[in-house]
């Protein structure tokens, strides 16, 4: 089964999951009015099932997955998530330079001037603008 067709199956399954599990469990029901709180979410879920099935039967377009890019995307997304978590504990001034440095090193930057620019100067400028100039807080 091609990835394109599989995406249709996934959408249809997600629609079913929404329709029978997620929407009923996370929507407070009301028995009056023309439009109930779950009407639009239910309608969306039904359409997702219908069009997901349609796409699984007659997939259109091309899907080319570059697995190297996918894995590296997952790596950078994880780094962003971890730095977000750490930012909540240690703050932007500590974690932002480290995050920028790790990201730059991972994509192959080795020139000291550019590393210093990205990891020290840019976070410092952001901090100055937001905290000192705009008088807003940072994590």
């Amino acid at each position, binding site marked *: 089964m091609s990835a394109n067709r599989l*995406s249709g199956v996934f959408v249809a399954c997600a629609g079913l999951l929404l329709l029978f599990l997620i929407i009923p469990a996370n929507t407070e029901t*009301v028995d009056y009015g023309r439009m109930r*709180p779950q009407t*639009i979410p239910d309608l969306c879920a039904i359409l997702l099932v219908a069009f997901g099935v349609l796409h699984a039967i007659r997939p259109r377009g091309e899907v080319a997955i570059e697995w190297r890019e996918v894995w590296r995307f997952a790596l*950078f*997304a994880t780094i962003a*998530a971890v730095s977000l978590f750490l930012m909540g504990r240690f703050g932007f001034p500590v974690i932002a330079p480290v995050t920028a440095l790790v*990201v730059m090193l991972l994509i192959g930057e080795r020139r000291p001037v550019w590393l210093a620019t990205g990891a020290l100067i*840019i976070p410092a400028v*952001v901090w100055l603008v937001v905290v000192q100039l705009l008088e807003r807080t940072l994590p």
Partner: protein
Amino acid sequence: MPDMDVLLAGLSDAFSLVNLLFVIAGVIVGQFVGAVPGIGPVMAMAIAIPFTFFMPTLPAIAFLVGVNKGGLFGGAIPAILMNTPGTPDAAATALDGHPLAKQGKPVKATKMALYSSITGDTFSDIVLITISAPLAVLALKMGPVEIFALMIFAFSVIAGLVGDSMVKGVIAAVFGLLCATVGIDPEHGTPRLYFGFFELFDGLPLAAVAIGMLAVSEILRRLASAGSTPRSAITSLDGDDPTVSRVSWAEYWSCRYVMARGAVIGTVLGAIPGIGSTAAAFMSYASAKQASDEPESFGKGNIKGIAAAESANSAVMGANLIPLLVIGIPGSIAAALLISAFKIHGIQPGPLLFEQQGRLIYGLFGAMILANATNLIVGQFSLRLWTRVISAPESVIFSSALLLCIVGVYMSTGGLFGVAVMLVFAVVGYVMNVFGFPVVVFIIAFFLGGSFETYLTQTMVILDGDLTRMIDYPIAVALVVLALISVWWLGFRKKG
């Protein structure tokens, strides 16, 4: 006819010093990000929106308009000098721009792009200014039933035109609508799909979703693919012969028909939601080539090719705002981002804008004209600077952009929860892109989801729950029929 005092007040706001400074800043930022391949004005607008939260309304909108206009021209610079379009819109510009640069005339190519971009953009702005108010008067005559039908029609056109599959477009639109239902139900006041997170009672934060899907998703993708493809060589401006580097009046005037045709194509396509500037640029380029006496010179450095592409892709910008201001439906992703900026400042786009916020709208029109003039002046003097920007390392650009996204969403949502939502939608956006589900359609549907539900509720009340009574509303019936025809034409016939 607008009140003259409102019009003059709006224009005086537009030409105030503060507004002028924000327009200049927006144009500079736009040209800068347009010149950097991979960022582009849409990502810059998404990142900038949270920072405009703290500005007065008109300077905030004017700044974003400046970013968009500057970015449209900025995208042409790497297209001409590196054969790598900074934005997809500039791909057609590279067809003749890069060969001309390789012939030793990079400055002439870039200046032609600048002049034709300003020409197309100004034409489109004049059309917007002229027709949007009368159209808004017509739109005000429509009731909830007609507007609901109009939204169905707009969704069907956008889903059919964007991407390579109608079904994928519909799935993206439905997913966008579903995400818009998160939070308190507008009719009953009961929470929906909040998964125990009380932060979601107000719905998914607009800025977090937009920045996640449009900016962070692309930044992480660029980081993931960094180093896998070598960067193209930059054609140096230093080798340009000063005697041939300027665009003479005769050369500009010789392109008048090409630019006029491009501006009309861009304006017409821009007014239709979902088509976009890339299609306009290629269509204008093809028609200029077809109409030319020497079509074989196209693709080999003909300045008319540059003029055709740039006038059309820039003309789309002003026209994109016609459906946004007239009926509250964005014609493009940039217009959708402007909706979020309007909403952040407590303004609901749509025909009532001309009645309730006339001063702001005429201020916006003034700022657009101002941005065109600024674009011309900044573009004239900063060309050599932007060629340095093109050579800045991706490592610094994308790591800085990531930090700005985190900070921007933190400021606009007031906590790390919003930043987490942004990250989740960055992953969602990437997955949608990989499988060919159009993110643009998702964003537009998400932004319009609240209004869609409101109009559907009102329609159901008016029709007493019986949709067959829609027959009493001929305009609504016509729009629904048009929606069905567009689904058939765009979905099944055109795309096979």
